[in-house]
């Protein structure tokens, strides 16, 4: 698999995740509904593959607005991972040198592996996580 194909797959999967999350917010009573409507439209454009460079940049901008709105990630770890993916995808799109693009995408891959490995390892060695006492 080459870098372009891996990036495209990442964009599609992230687009589906953002779209699903945005639809959940459309029932919200307040102005945040409009922010998530914009996010939903951008996520759909990303899935289809329209102007992905600018769509990713706009999604990052919108994510910063949401970060400010909620004074942090709305859904903890999942939102943080979404932000990390967005930032790395932006770097992949905007960095001028292929090698730098690979480093940015490699950093994302490393953090993704670490997120699963460390959380999994802690749950293996700590019995409170397995017994259901940890929440």
């Amino acid at each position, binding site marked *: 698999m080459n870098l372009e194909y891996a990036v495209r797959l990442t964009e599609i999967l992230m687009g589906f995740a953002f779209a*699903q*999350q945005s639809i*959940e*917010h459309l*029932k919200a*009573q307040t102005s945040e509904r409009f922010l998530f409507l914009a996010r939903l439209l951008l996520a759909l454009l990303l899935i289809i593959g329209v102007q992905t460079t600018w769509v990713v940049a706009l999604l990052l901008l919108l994510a*910063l607005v949401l*970060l*400010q709105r*909620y*004074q*942090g*990630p*709305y*859904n*903890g770890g999942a*939102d*943080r*991972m979404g*932000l*990390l993916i967005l*930032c790395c995808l932006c770097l992949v799109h905007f960095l001028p040198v292929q090698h730098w693009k690979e480093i940015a995408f490699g950093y994302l891959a490393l*953090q993704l592996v*670490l*997120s699963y490995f*460390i*959380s999994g390892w*802690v*749950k293996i060695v*700590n019995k*409170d*996580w397995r017994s259901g*006492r*940890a*929440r």
Partner: protein
Amino acid sequence: MLPVLKLLLPALVPSWRFFDIIAPSPRVQFTLLNAENDVPQEWHEFRPHPAHLPLLHMLGRMLWNPQWNESMFVVSCAERLMESPTRHSEDEIMRRIMSDVVNDTTQVHWADASHLQFRLLIIERQETELQEEVTYYSRIERLPVQALV
């Protein structure tokens, strides 16, 4: 711009060490008052977990569960309130409780009530016993006028 970047930084350089600590999750409870200086009589848990969830519902919730995601945000706000209280976190929790009360999703009779307050509770297991500790009381907020009708 700087405050947003401060919020963004933990996402760019994640620390996965937080899994090491099993901190008790704060519970949010609310009470309805008949006047601003009324003494709380009964505290109700905000969005208690269902005692039983059918398998089909459980599977459905993997794809669609906005209320649970919102409840997770409420817990985040509660944790922030315990660490360093801000008006933002209190407002976010208050707004959601108010909405549930007024829309009758809490199953708590509110027609006679005029004010609302919430508190945060930590439940810790000490060997076999559960110990409760109240860590935060919110301001007392007036319910919408419709509530008095």
